[in-house]
């Protein structure tokens, strides 16, 4: 076995990248796991709203000339889109088999992709980093790290804390958890469970779209960008344990680390190159290992 170590400065930069990627994944996956855990709906189209977010950021930033305003308006629009979708389609799925959910939400992927093509076209776009975040922090004489990527991590951490607070410490969070555990009982205590579900779904969509918005300046904006994200997000949800927001955070960070370092480390086993040649498989290998160890995911509820 031969192992090529990274120089420390490269390691530091890759570590920051890994954390930033993981935190961004968490934002998308948290909405997915909430909707799945609370309403029992598998939303394959969740990643499409990551893409919609990126396109909204691009077109609104061009329109307003300011990414900050674009994000505020974009999040408001995403909440409305999410609420409308829940009201029109998703609420019809709660009592149905997963097959119907997969069919409907797969259909939504195709529709969203087509609408995106009609409204915004099929070109790849770049979104400029806002001026006040455009700087870089020098690490060594030759290497530096962009402030914008640090800002992404900071925003994601703040949102993760805010989500944990709302779910664990507020009355709204208690209501959401109560509704997830026993819908009928929650209703009989006067809770409008349909409204709670509408809000949870809309917030989940808005989180995915927000992730797409803040990622746009570093990843660029392109057709089908949600499809890459959704697959990894399902891996996050499965590793973390379905329905667990805490699990989604841990799993997303793990995947960020494995995926990023899988691509930069060099590893040879018995003369056969393993990394980075097989880096594309690394997150799935991680998932397989976790599932062999804990079939219900890291923070999932054990089946009774």
């Amino acid at each position, binding site marked *: 076995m031969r192992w090529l170590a990274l120089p420390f400065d490269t390691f530091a930069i890759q570590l920051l990248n890994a954390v930033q990627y993981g935190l961004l994944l968490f934002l998308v996956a948290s909405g997915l796991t909430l909707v799945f855990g609370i309403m029992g709906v598998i939303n394959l189209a969740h990643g499409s709203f990551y893409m919609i977010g990126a396109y909204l950021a691009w077109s609104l930033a061009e329109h307003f000339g300011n990414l900050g305003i674009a994000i505020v308006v974009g999040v408001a629009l995403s909440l409305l889109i999410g609420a409308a979708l829940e009201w029109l389609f998703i609420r019809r799925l709660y009592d149905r088999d997963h097959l119907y959910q997969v069919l409907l939400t797969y259909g939504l992927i195709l529709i969203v992709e087509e609408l995106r093509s009609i409204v915004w076209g099929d070109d790849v776009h770049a979104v400029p980093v806002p001026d006040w975040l455009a700087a870089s922090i020098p690490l060594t004489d030759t290497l530096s790290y962009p402030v914008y990527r640090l800002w992404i991590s900071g925003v994601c951490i703040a949102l993760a804390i805010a989500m944990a607070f709302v779910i664990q410490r507020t009355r709204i969070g208690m209501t959401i*958890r*109560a509704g997830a555990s026993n819908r*009928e009982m929650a209703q009989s*205590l*006067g809770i409008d469970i349909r409204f709670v579900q509408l809000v949870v779904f809309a917030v989940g969509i808005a989180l995915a779209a927000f992730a797409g918005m803040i990622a746009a300046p570093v990843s660029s904006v392109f057709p089908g960008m949600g499809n890459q994200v959704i697959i990894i997000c399902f891996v996050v949800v499965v590793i973390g344990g379905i329905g667990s927001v805490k699990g989604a955070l841990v799993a997303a960070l793990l995947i960020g680390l494995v995926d990023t370092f899988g691509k930069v480390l060099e590893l040879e086993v018995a003369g056969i190159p393993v990394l980075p040649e097989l880096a594309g498989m690394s997150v799935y290998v991680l998932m397989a290992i976790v599932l062999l160890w804990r079939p219900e995911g890291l923070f999932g509820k054990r089946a009774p």
Partner: protein
Amino acid sequence: MRDVGPIVDARGIHAHYGLSHVLHGVDLIVHPGEAIGLMGRNGMGKTTLLRSVLGLLPPRRGSVHVRGVDMTRAAPHRIARAGIAYVPEGRGIFPNLTVRENLIMAARPGVGGRNEWTYDRVLATFPRLMERLGHGGQQLSGGEQQMLTIGRALMTNPDLLILDEATEGLAPLIAQEIWRIIGQICATGVAAILVDKNLAAVTRVTDRNIILVKGRVVFEGTSAELRANPAIGLQHLGV
């Protein structure tokens, strides 16, 4: 001003579970402050009748008025907010919430803004819950779970408390304790519907009693009448 009409006025309720016709035109009228016993053997339609009133199983035919408003097809949360609280069979506590959270999530002023049942008063009524506030719902004993569901129902400041098999499966001493508290609650002027197999315990608390057999009301009368005619209980309830 409190209105003087019935809290619940359900008439001619027909309810079905799938293909089976469970209720055949049942009336259930509850006036403010009144305690009603709902009795019958298993499978006679007691829980179905309660679920119809609560909006959890909208009746096929018949009407449900709550405080004079037609709520026959209303969502369950609207019926709850009209002042009806439900303690279901099997209790329905939220196991993923702590005892404290189970109580807090239900807290709201009653109809007309009454706020007699505060968190502190509920805990004073069920002092055993006080030592368990941070525990998850599933760590409680059966009796404590029952106290929690009753306490949680009171947090909504109801005008009508519906208790389905409140003492089912509890040790006799704990059941006695629960009955004592139910008696206290009824004495505060909250109306109640009590479903239980223990005829003696029910009739000590209730004013009026209904016996269901195969989805029909076969007896309706005061607790004194029931006690004076043990044959009725023997025939329809087997006690």
